[in-house]
């Protein structure tokens, strides 16, 4: 016998977990769909060369890579962006341009598992490619706001910045290219470590006077307008236009926070960048992304500029658990029809058919066992109603509905079962 076990950093999800995850997933999808996003799917396995070298040195080490039975060099999907770029490069002539899609699938990383870090997890992306118009950025921001609202989060911040703006600040201060990446990473930590620590760290790589000037420009105190004011001598048109288009989209005031220090780790962003947070749950960014100039550069002569974000699906689920937004999620069966004996079975199944026709999720117990056992089954499956179809009920053409939560039983004409259950208040 083999001791049953699963790889560290992977998870089994039992029905209760899956009900919650499906609920969250469907809420998110419904927002994407409302904005007209279609979806695509790519294989879980790709040629290793497709994925290698796209995620920086650190990232490449974390790619699951192996040789298959035919000796091919294979890699597991590491994120959804690179396979998407490959898909676009292969199919762009078939696709409408601008092209937008959502994509939700599992990805794999050969990482050391830790709390909240998995080897197999779900990513949830939207991207718009083939347009440079900031309306695309504004739509992405609006989709984020709508997703958070659909999930029930009231207190969110969608932070944004412009890589272009940041670069022009760095250039004005003559900060050499070699250290720009370090500088951006340092600035990105401002929220976490505070001004003094950032200043100290910057002093290590540049003149303290320059560091001070840099931090004066990028001061993130005050409201959006005040922050833009401080950067007035730079080209802030992109920021203003993005904010205006977002306003026209109806993104609530105060949700969008201009953060001049926001940098995002990845190097390929070129314009507006995003990072969104739940203010009531300390789990880091729950959605992030931005504008990239050339999605398919390594796969195609064609160049596609685009903007997109990835939602941290697992973090959103954790956040909703913590804020008790998933309490009302129920398992699938709403009604259990009891199995009394072979004589009552025809009526029981007829009732089941009728309830299912009324779109009420209904199942039948599989054995003619004592009712108590059938009630226990219903309780364990969290089924709210049990429909008792016994000999007395059949004789009078009635059914007895037991409400599991209250234990109360109600006998009504059999043909009213569907309307009773449909009208039952929550």
């Amino acid at each position, binding site marked *: 016998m083999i001791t049953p076990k699963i790889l560290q950093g992977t998870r089994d999800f039992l029905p209760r977990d899956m009900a919650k995850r499906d609920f969250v997933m469907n809420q998110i999808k419904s927002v994407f769909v409302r904005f007209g996003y279609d979806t695509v799917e790519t294989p879980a396995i790709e040629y290793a060369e497709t994925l290698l070298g796209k995620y920086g040195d650190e990232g490449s080490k974390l790619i699951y890579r192996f040789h298959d039975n035919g000796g091919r060099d294979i890699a597991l999907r590491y994120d959804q962006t690179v396979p998407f770029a490959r898909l676009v490069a292969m199919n762009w002539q078939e696709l409408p341009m601008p092209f937008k899609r959502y994509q939700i699938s599992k990805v794999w990383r050969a990482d050391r598992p830790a709390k909240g870090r998995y080897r197999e997890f779900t990513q949830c992306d939207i991207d718009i490619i083939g347009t440079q118009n900031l309306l695309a950025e504004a739509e992405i921001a609006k989709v984020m706001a709508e997703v958070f*609202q659909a999930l029930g989060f009231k207190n969110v911040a969608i932070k944004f910045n412009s890589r272009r703006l940041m670069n022009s600040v760095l250039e004005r201060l003559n900060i050499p290219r070699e250290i720009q990446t370090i500088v951006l990473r340092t600035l990105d930590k401002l929220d976490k470590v505070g001004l003094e620590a950032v200043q100290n760290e910057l002093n290590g790589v540049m003149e303290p006077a320059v560091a001070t000037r840099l931090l004066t420009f990028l001061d993130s105190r005050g409201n959006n307008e005040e922050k833009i004011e401080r950067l007035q001598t730079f080209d802030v048109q992109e920021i203003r236009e993005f904010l205006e288009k977002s306003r026209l989209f109806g993104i609530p005031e105060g949700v969008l926070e201009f953060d001049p220090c926001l940098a995002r780790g990845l190097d390929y962003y070129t314009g507006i960048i995003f990072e969104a947070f739940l203010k009531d749950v300390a789990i880091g960014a729950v959605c992030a992304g931005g504008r990239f100039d050339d999605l398919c550069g390594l796969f195609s002569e064609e160049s596609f500029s685009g903007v997109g974000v990835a939602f941290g699906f697992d973090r959103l689920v954790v956040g909703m658990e913590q804020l008790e937004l998933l309490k009302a999620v129920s398992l699938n069966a709403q009604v259990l029809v009891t199995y009394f004996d072979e004589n009552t079975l025809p009526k029981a199944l007829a009732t089941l058919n009728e309830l299912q026709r009324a779109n009420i999720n209904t199942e039948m117990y599989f054995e003619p066992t004592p009712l108590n056992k059938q009630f226990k089954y219903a309780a364990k499956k969290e089924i709210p109603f049990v429909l008792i179809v016994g000999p007395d009920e059949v004789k009078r053409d009635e059914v007895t509905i037991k409400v599991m939560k209250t234990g109360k039983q109600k006998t009504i004409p059999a043909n009213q079962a569907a309307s009773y*259950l449909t009208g039952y208040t929550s």
Partner: protein
Amino acid sequence: MIRIAIQSKGRLSDASIEFLRSRGLKFEPNGRSLVTPCANRDVEILWLRSGDIPEYVNRGVADFGIAGANVLAEKGMELEGAEKMDFGFCKLVIAVPGDSGIHSVRDLEGERIATSYPIILSRYLQAQGIRAAIIPLRGSVEIAPRLNLADAICDLVQTGKTLSDNHLKPLVTILESQAILIKNQYVIPAKAGIFSELFPNQIPTSVGMTQKL
């Protein structure tokens, strides 16, 4: 020109017509036409089913309207602090057959309640922490218990005669209603001016579906 929507025939129509005429508006009684212009003022009367009045005003097809608080509440319109007019009094009550075993609101747990006001009723039940099966009916709610379609009803009561005719007794009043003057929330100042000149003592309540996000 302003447009005022009132009920074409029903509980509120006579009183609504009387109200408009009491401020000097001259117009023909409701014939077959949906719209009647006033002879003496730049006002049009829109004759509608009571349930449609909130929607017409909400969408700005009518600038003003007279509707029952019960109808507005059923449409989910926020009307806190709305000034009430002096007519159209009625109550929304839950009633049960005279020989019913239901003696208190608690006893409604799990029972069937027939009503034309499912929204108001479900809010009430929720507030009371009671779960019951709401059986939505368009009309003739009072006969539902006799037909074993419901164990209780939730219906509008003016005199109580319909209830007693059907051997029903009131259990609890869940809404006291009267006529309310409403206006479209975006009505332009010029129209609001015409209205307040005609009806100086009336403050209409703005209606609008609560805008989400």
